[in-house]
């Protein structure tokens, strides 16, 4: 049996996790609001490029962020560049504020992307009317901020979920978090029921927050990855020095979140270790990663579309599925094994099919939410007209298919592409579930990356992150140009 009440250490771990998650959500939101508004309303050179580049931190394992910062601080200490603050730097990194800073740099792109798209979705007419009677700053305060509030709250909650289920960075920096307690409970067979009970707690917390969120925003779309605006609705004119300052601030954020974690260990590798790239990976591992990410992401889209039409459109279905995102991956993996490891499923269990099914179930809630909010933003007249055109024919199934092909598909294509891209990235960087259900003889870059971690081979880890980045970009760009997903395809 297990205790319903948490022990002191479990409560302390839950408090640590909550504080870290809330703080990371808050700071990510702040950075994202600044970035989204600056990149939307200030004429900065390279705006579109920055919008893309600021998503790259999502591909870098948070562990690598922590490693790189630790190496940098130790390097500065060894060469006495920090002076009397040397040991303070290391102590700061090994504290809760240090963990918050690192996870903020790792996860702020989630908030940034959602908020940026929300800004671009504000109706142009609204902005045009407001700008006639008010200054840009007031328009930002009275129109833009309230309009993007639902998306901001969703962005904060998603960042909260991702941070809550992260344990490797807090463990590396010496802090006990709730997921570590769940891991520990799984190590003793007698405590598995306790582990399962602990796993449900974050689901309930997140479920409660979703209920409050949906109550607050009603039927307004929580977020969307498609966008209406292609041009800057209005530009805030400001002194050139301020524009330059904002530009360099954005560049600095990019440097801290992307160039630094990738660069520190690469430089160390070049100067001291000279580890050849060929040792980082192999063709088999790269092929596995590409294949599983590509196939799984397409399957996730197909599965999510099915789930969306059957369950997701009801409010209870939405809350239930979104809350499942907070279930710790280790619990998910173990439940999956119990569910599918049966003789009748043998032909699936020991093949990559099992991984694909696991990814579909794990990431479907995110994709369903994208489809749901996108549907709310489509002009309903399109569907009304289409129904009128196709309703008269006696060949109903064929006409329904034609309506889907001619009308629904083009309207959903942008969100389907973006959802596929997100799914691709999520699958390519997924570790805990992969470790538990990967078939024998199968390995991906991310599992290989964490294996080499044990040897203190941070340089190899950094090289493999670059490999992961390159692999992820290639198919995304290929599909982007194949389907010519561009301004013309948006409504």
């Amino acid at each position: 049996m297990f205790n319903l009440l948490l022990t002191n250490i479990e409560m302390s771990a839950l408090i640590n996790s909550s504080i870290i998650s809330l703080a990371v959500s808050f700071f990510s939101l702040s950075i994202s609001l600044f970035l989204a508004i600056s990149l939307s309303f200030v004429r900065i050179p390279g705006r579109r490029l920055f919008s893309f580049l600021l998503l790259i931190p999502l591909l870098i394992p948070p562990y690598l962020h922590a490693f790189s910062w630790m190496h940098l601080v130790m390097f500065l200490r060894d060469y006495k560049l920090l002076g009397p603050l040397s040991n303070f730097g290391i102590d700061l990194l090994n504290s809760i504020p240090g963990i918050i800073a690192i996870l903020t740099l790792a996860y702020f792109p989630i908030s940034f992307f959602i908020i940026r798209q929300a800004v671009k979705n504000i109706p142009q007419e609204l902005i045009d009317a407001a700008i006639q009677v008010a200054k840009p700053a007031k328009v930002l305060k009275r129109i833009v901020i309230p309009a993007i509030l639902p998306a901001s709250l969703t962005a904060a909650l998603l960042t909260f979920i991702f941070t809550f289920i992260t344990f490797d960075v807090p463990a590396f920096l010496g802090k006990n978090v709730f997921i570590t307690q769940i891991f520990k409970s799984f190590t003793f067979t007698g405590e598995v029921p306790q582990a399962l009970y602990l796993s449900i707690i974050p689901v309930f917390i997140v479920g409660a927050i979703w209920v409050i969120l949906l109550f607050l925003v009603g039927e307004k779309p929580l977020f969307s990855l498609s966008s209406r605006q292609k041009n800057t609705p209005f530009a805030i004119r400001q002194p050139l020095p301020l524009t330059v300052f904002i530009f360099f601030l954005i560049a600095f954020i990019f440097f801290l979140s992307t160039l630094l974690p990738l660069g520190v260990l690469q430089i160390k590798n070049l100067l001291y270790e000279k580890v050849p790239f060929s040792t980082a990976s192999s063709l088999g591992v790269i092929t596995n990663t590409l294949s599983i990410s590509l196939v799984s992401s397409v399957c996730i889209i197909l599965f999510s579309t099915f789930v969306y039409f059957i369950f997701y459109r009801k409010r209870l279905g939405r809350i239930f599925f979104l809350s499942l995102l907070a279930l710790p991956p280790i619990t998910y993996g173990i439940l999956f094994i119990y569910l599918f490891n049966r003789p009748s499923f043998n032909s699936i269990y020991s093949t990559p099919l099992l991984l694909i099914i696991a990814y579909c179930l794990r990431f479907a809630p995110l994709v369903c939410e994208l489809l749901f909010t996108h549907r709310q933003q489509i002009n309903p007249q399109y569907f009304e007209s289409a129904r009128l055109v196709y309703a008269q024919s006696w060949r109903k199934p064929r006409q329904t298919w034609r309506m889907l092909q001619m009308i629904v598909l083009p309207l959903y294509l942008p969100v389907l592409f973006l959802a596929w891209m997100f799914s691709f990235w999520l699958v390519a960087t997924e570790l805990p579930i992969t470790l538990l259900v990967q078939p024998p003889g199968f390995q991906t870059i991310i599992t290989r990356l964490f294996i080499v971690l044990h040897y203190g081979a941070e340089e190899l880890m950094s090289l493999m992150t670059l490999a992961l980045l390159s692999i992820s970009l290639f198919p995304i760009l290929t599909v982007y140009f194949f389907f010519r997903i561009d301004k013309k395809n948006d409504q």
Partner: protein
Amino acid sequence: MDSVCMLNTMNQGKKLGLKLFYLVLATFALLAIFTFSSFTTSQNEVVVYVSHDQDYAQPILEAFEKDTGIKVKAVFDTEASKTVGLTNRLIAEKNNPQADLFWNNEVVRTIQLKKEGILDVYRPRNYDKLNSLYKDSEGYWTGFAARARVLIVNTDLLDKTNRPGSLEDLTKPLFAGQVTLADPRFGTTGSHVAALYALWGKEKTENFFKALKKNGLDIVSSNGQTRDKVVAGTKRIGFTDTDDVNDALIKKDPVVMIYPDQKDGQVGTLVIPNTAMLIKGAKHADNAKKLIDYLISDKTESALAFAKSAQMPLLPGVDRPGNVPSVSSIKPLAVGWEEIYKNLKPAISFFEKNILQ
């Protein structure tokens, strides 16, 4: 509604439908190729779960494949899963085992699997040549290629005269705030603490760790991180394993390895073998037995001794390099693994309540 806009949308839809059809077709063709080879399982293969580091284990498995022609399909564990990933997987798969054998890099989780009824009895060819400390008396598991729990000391920060020779030295004021240890809830540190519980008894062990905590004991997430902190000079002394220290010695980092408590009257140190075991209900049991025989052999132990992991052969007369001591030259902790396993949960519980908070 704008009819031109509607017409454009419909035209796009026709082209899009075809493109999407090609994409989905390509995806499922890839899926079929991807999984086809997995569907065609053969009897001449063996599935092994491996907790030992992949870079050391893989050459051994590849050599076995080459020598016997039996295809090896391996699942490796990572530091991130805290060595419990594969154990949990084996327990979850109990009713329909997928693995044929398990190559673990320690013993306590092996005992847990034995208690869970996951293992089957198999005594390999060289079983009788091994010391009873490194094998199961009933034949459920067999040890090979061991490492030991040691102290890693930064030589730039601690000269020879001030270095500790025993675990109990670490409570001295001289080492205040300078000792680091991995979280015992995962990995070999837990086994070490449990072994002390078994040997010293509850009271002495708890007083020792409370004194360490009072002396500023630092807890980190892994043995690798213990090593890294001592190498970086952030701490001067760490508890870790021989293979972690060897990584640093090969890189010529300013550290030295000390086997604690080796003098007369002292308790010795924990020697932790790799363990190989047959899974009950294995689909390729004969091949699994061949692989276990291969692992518990002179050739494998010598290869692991000469590798970066520098692990000590347990079989007599195995060729090893100069930096790898003979296991008989090390005074081991005289406590059985079943006893260590029994004390693991109370040890971890004590640590959680008194040291980690």
